């Protein structure tokens, strides 16, 4: 008996050896698989004459981008086209953050309304939007709503704002300091600021979809503040607005900000569905470039790097914000 206890356990029960053996086995399998895939890749690419090269980025793109903040024409090189696509993506993502945060906060706080109808409408909004695919919503906004708008004189006109099939027209400064609104010239609307229906549909779809998720984040954040905090604030003599601003919101934000980070990142990634409503974003330019040049690896590397960079920036900013709102213990 004593002999069995003192004898060292068999090697497969050795607590230090086994983990290393497992790791070595996993590492070996990984190396073999990666080497196999890379070997195939190099062989297949050289057979197709497509070995890694970035020279095509400087060649003329020979396609046009319908709307671009960055001046771009067909004779400009590919890299400029991709950059214009990236700027377009950032434009819709930036406006999407603002819109979805506002709408989401509104819907999220509506579920605490004293009015039963408002409360239920907020629930219904969230349940309907979250259970329908985003892509379906985007094509719906584009083909059913924005492309069905009336054109010309029949367009929807509000003071200073015109919504027509050709886009959304807003007033602005033109030719120096002349404040000009939209005007109808030969049956075509013109204005200092114009958003195309493609951009409008994408932005609306992204905002409406993301707002449903942000509403849930906001609702969870407010619900996480104990009821006693409200009561304590009231008994200290604070009015509803002041107690919301000084007591409730600072505590709710601690729960809300990390959730917002996730939603902002998914909005940025979802903006790649722009191609469904004809908006030229980074993905759409990359797809066209691939079809023209056949440079699959390079295009995908650029795409993935760009989206990872966007995610990283969002995460960094939101983590900074998170540090601001967390409890400061001294």
């Amino acid at each position, binding site marked *: 008996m004593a002999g069995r206890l003192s004898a060292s356990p068999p090697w497969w029960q050795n607590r230090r050896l086994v*983990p290393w053996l*497992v*790791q070595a086995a*996993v*590492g070996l399998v*990984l190396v073999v698989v990666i080497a196999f*895939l890379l070997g*195939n*890749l190099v062989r*297949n*690419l050289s057979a*197709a004459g497509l070995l890694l090269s970035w020279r095509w980025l400087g060649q003329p793109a020979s396609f046009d981008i319908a709307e671009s903040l960055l001046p771009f024409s067909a004779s400009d090189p590919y890299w400029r086209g991709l950059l214009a696509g990236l700027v377009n993506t950032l434009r819709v993502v930036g406006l999407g953050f603002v819109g979805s945060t506002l709408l989401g906060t509104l819907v999220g706080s509506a579920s605490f309304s*004293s*009015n*039963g*109808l*408002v409360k239920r*409408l907020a629930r219904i909004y969230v*349940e*309907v939007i*979250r*259970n*329908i*695919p*985003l*892509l*379906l*919503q985007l*094509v*719906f906004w584009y*083909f*059913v709503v924005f492309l*069905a708008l009336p054109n010309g004189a029949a367009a929807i006109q509000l003071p200073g704002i015109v919504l027509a099939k050709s886009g959304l027209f807003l007033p602005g400064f033109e030719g120096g300091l002349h404040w000009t609104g939209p005007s109808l010239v030969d049956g075509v609307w013109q204005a200092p600021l114009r958003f195309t229906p493609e951009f409008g549909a994408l932005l609306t779809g992204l905002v409406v979809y993301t707002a449903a998720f942000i509403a849930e984040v906001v609702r969870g954040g407010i619900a996480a503040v104990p009821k006693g905090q409200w009561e304590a604030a009231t008994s200290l003599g604070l009015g509803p607005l002041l107690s919301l601003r000084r007591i409730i919101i600072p505590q709710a934000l601690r729960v809300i900000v990390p959730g917002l980070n996730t939603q902002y990142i998914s909005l940025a*990634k*979802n903006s*790649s*569905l722009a*191609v*469904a409503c004809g908006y030229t974003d980074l*993905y759409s330019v990359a*797809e066209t470039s*691939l079809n023209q040049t056949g440079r*699959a*690896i390079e295009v*995908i590397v650029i*795409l*993935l790097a760009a*989206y*990872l960079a966007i*995610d990283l920036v969002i995460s960094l900013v939101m983590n900074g914000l998170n540090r601001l709102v967390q409890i400061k213990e001294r």
Partner: protein
Amino acid sequence: MPRVTPTSLRKELFANPLDGLVSVLLITGLAAVGYRLLHWALTQAQWAVIQANSTLFAVGRYPIEQQWRLWLLVALLVAATGLSWGVLRGLPLRDRPITALWPRNDRIGAIVLVALGSWAPAALGLTLSIQVRWWGLTGLLLLMRWLAGRYGSRLGKAATRALPLVWPLLYLVGMVLIGGGLGLVPVGTNEWGGLLLTLVEASFAILLSAPLGVLLALGRRSSLPLLRWGSVLYIEFIRGAPLITLLFLGQNILGFLLPGGLAPDRIWRAAWILTFFSAAYLAEAVRSGLAAVPRGQLEAARSLGLSLPQALAQVVLPQALRIALPATVGQFISLLQDTTLLSLIGLLDLLGTARSVMANPLFLGKSAEVYLTLAVLFWCCCAALGLGSRALERRLNPPSLGR
């Protein structure tokens, strides 16, 4: 659900003047929108586009003389659904140890199903023989539900444990029925389409990403650096990239990565990408479940003499997966929704079929009808999955665990 009475209505809608004003405005607005929508749906919308293409939406270009195989598969699926429903109902609830054979929610569900089963096929203008099949399927569902609910408890615990295995088994049977082989005429993947393709892709990805996700989650929490960093790298890479770029990668690069001829065709490439994509998100769901299981559980299991795999499989994972269930089903629901992205890489899933139908000059400008129908269909599928997950969650929580 609280009972609606004049008093409760007054309290909810007209508690103070501001609430009253908001309520009046909202009710007026809702009534106007509802009236216009109904008016459009009943008098202006031309639903013929749905009727004329119902087969295309359901199965794509699947050969007509082989469609009996799909009907058989649907019957099997319906039977399994009824069985699961009945057995799930029979499991005791924490606050209600014995449940009635037909609780109120189930009665409502059954009535809705009967109404849908008898009205929808007729409203779609399907032929009488197909209508009869749908009636039969509804009857089969309720029959299996009744049988499982009435006699399921006599089969004992082993039957309840075996039930989840019915679904993967059914998947294998389904793939044989759909694709052919074993004596059946083969039907190529290029002839699958519509709802059939959507469901094949989603179920493939769900079944394979579940074990993959659990492995990745365990890897991420492993004490072995290689496993941990490998899992972290994989999960963060996949979660950082939009799905469409990954699908794009699958279509354009997978062919280069494998020796010629070994690469799967376009449909299976997309299915694998969906699987790898979903596994990374599932891993995060499972990881949160693992984090919620106290460390003492693993230590206690190890000191009882269980090996690490045994302790994980029999003590830690059952608890972690139960906690991760809502997040897991949430991921499955978004996976079902993500299959619509296949239409962007040129596959004819439900949305892709819809887009190809609208390209037909005959059905130009009917996008509102088609997209609304798809939206209702997706909404029903996703809402049903969510309901099922909530019912399962309430029954899996053991009495001591509480919430």
